[in-house]
């Protein structure tokens, strides 16, 4: 069992947990993820490790309540425990001194971008960050991103805060102004990553994306997370989660992410109907 030692609401339906998991906290590196289960009947949920404190023995998880499993996770509070926590999983981000790195996060994707930006800064890169959300009250980690970036641009789709536009527009502005960038890291909803990659491809600017397909075991055993990269099938859980964004077949990824929409809807409705109390209960 893995006790939750701190919970915070970061934005509407976005929560942050600090979980006691000393072994994982010691081992994890930026870019890696965990899988968790909340109760015996629950799914295995993959989440990026947003941060870790090896001394305290904690890892930080950030999630958006979108379906039944994350909604149920959101009902847990300080003192509750996760039934299972498996990790670290996946390859760590390749971090070295590239020069100038643009770290772009959209929506909940800012959570996985944060540790990478932090790592890139530690490796003495100049970090230019662009973070965005649909609207102001969905924006997360603005302050944290500011601390690890040499430059931070905050965008909202509706203009309710900061730059009015998409993160890709802000990147376009930077490039048009002649800003030199050696590497782009872009994480967020698939349409956002696709637009960023289309933009950087025309300029031959290397772009790393981190993918979040459906997973089951997340150890390379099932292939649920397979994705086409450069025409080859790769497993995101063990070959990724990061890939060259110019090689990823995003259209296929979107379709695969939608494979269980009807079941997800059915589960969520049943959960909400039951007043958010889970059938399995907390154990």
């Amino acid at each position: 069992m893995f006790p939750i030692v701190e919970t915070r609401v970061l934005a509407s339906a976005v929560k942050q947990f600090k979980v006691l998991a000393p072994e994982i906290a010691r081992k994890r590196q930026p870019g890696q993820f965990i899988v968790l289960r909340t109760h015996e009947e629950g799914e295995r949920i993959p989440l990026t490790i947003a941060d870790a404190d090896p001394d305290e023995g904690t890892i930080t998880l950030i999630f958006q309540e979108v379906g039944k499993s994350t909604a149920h996770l959101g009902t847990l509070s300080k003192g509750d425990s996760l039934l299972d926590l498996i990790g670290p999983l996946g390859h760590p981000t390749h971090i070295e001194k590239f020069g100038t790195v643009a770290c772009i996060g959209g929506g909940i994707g800012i959570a996985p971008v944060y540790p990478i930006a932090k790592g890139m800064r530690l490796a003495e890169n100049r970090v230019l960050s662009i973070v965005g959300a649909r609207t102001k009250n969905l924006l997360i980690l603005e302050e944290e991103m500011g601390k690890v970036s040499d430059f931070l641009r905050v965008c909202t789709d509706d203009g309710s805060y900061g730059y009015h536009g998409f993160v890709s527009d802000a990147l376009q502005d930077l490039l048009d102004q002649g800003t030199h960038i050696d590497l782009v890291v872009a994480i967020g909803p698939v349409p956002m990553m696709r637009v960023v990659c289309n933009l950087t491809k025309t300029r031959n600017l290397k772009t790393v994306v981190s993918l979040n397909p459906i997973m089951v075991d997340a150890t390379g055993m099932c292939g649920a997370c397979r994705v086409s990269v450069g025409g080859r099938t790769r497993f995101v859980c063990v070959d990724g989660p990061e890939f060259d964004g110019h090689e990823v077949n995003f259209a296929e990824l979107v379709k695969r992410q939608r494979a269980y929409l009807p079941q997800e809807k059915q589960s969520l409705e049943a959960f909400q109907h039951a007043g958010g109390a889970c059938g399995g209960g907390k154990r």
Partner: protein
Amino acid sequence: MMAETPEKKKKEAIPRQKMPEQEARIRARNFEEVPFGYPAELAKLEASRCLQCKKPACVAGCPVSIDIPSFIWMVLQDDFLGAARKLKEMNTLPAVCGRVCPQEDQCEKMCILGKKGEPVAIGRLERFAADHERNHGQFVMPPKAPPTGKKVAVVGSGPAGLTVAGDLIKKGHQVTIFEALHKAGGVLVYGIPEFRLPKAIVQAEVDYLEKVGVEIKTDRVLGQIATVDELMANGYDAVFLGTGAGLPTFMNIPGENLNGVYSANEYLTRSNLMKAYLFPQYDTPIARGKNVAVLGGGNVAMDSARTAIRLGAENVYIVYRRSKKELPARIEEVHHAEEEGIQFHFLTLPVKILGNDDGWITGMECQRMELGEPDSSGRRRPLPIPGSEFQMGIDLLIVAIGTGANPLIQSTTPDLQTNKWGYIVADPETGATSKKGVYAGGDIVTGSATVILAMGAGRKAADAIHKYLMG
């Protein structure tokens, strides 16, 4: 000579006893176990068929050398608990092996009665004795050697790992099992369906090991949370790698990433480990097809097909590129599948998977095959018949054409020798690898094989590890 004694004549007159089982029509719609097992009278009647050979050939046919005539004799004498204990002397998991061992290729194949008629149903008797003990027996601590102070890490809790752990704990060593998934049991839990191996039975075996003193750490992906070298540096005197062959193989044909195309590993893991067949009571979903094709002809293909029919499919097809004779699955499994209405398309090879704009499978294009000369496996090589392409309308495809080695441990253990397929190179007699103090056994050495062969490898490795630790 036992050949023509009146005693033998009499025994031949008693037919091999069938296990009562769920009727095919009914069981094809539920996930409960197919056979009910012998009641005591049937078990004793079957046990009475055993000739109690002085030089029992059956024992030589058993990868873990169970004293088969002795346990059968105890069944006959009403000493069911004694029979179970006799089994457990050599076999850590008799209730499992009684269900999933290919006895027809092992002990029963060697049975003298089988020369003229039908062999003694050794597997069914094993199952009977083990079930009786689980249901009626009390936990008895097996004799344990005094503590040696040595620590062993066992990586993977499948049949090989459980066997190694069970053997070494009795020899007085401290044993910790590291399992990547949230439940111990490996393929017994994620792979073999409930209707063939109820999970409560696996859990009982795992619980037994814990009671005997084995520490089981689930949720630990070795290679990530710790490397083999780190285990050794942290006080483990020896390491056994029993990580299995868990990497699914696909055919590399167009359309394989369409929704509705599963690896058998994914399909079975969703259903078995995550209990998706109980969705929405359990949260993990599984696609339910109306017309389901399963590629492959092994036990995993049969398990997948029989799962699909239980999930409500109207038509389930096994699509296999060779003929019925070459099916690698156990005869009993093929027979069960046929009874449950699974349809077989032999000499058929898919070349392309077809889909719609939403990314869902709608069918597949296949080619008819004919058999040519035998290939390196000794089986006749299937060859495509030109111009024989045809389409099959399906809405779910399960690819059960085998698995490969998961590279996680090997890639983080630089001095561990592997072969060209990524399997760990280990001495077949001892399980010793190229790395001192590190042993391996089961599918991660041999590639996909059977539960009992993995257990046999575990037994040999446990003996070798014991010698290494005490030498």
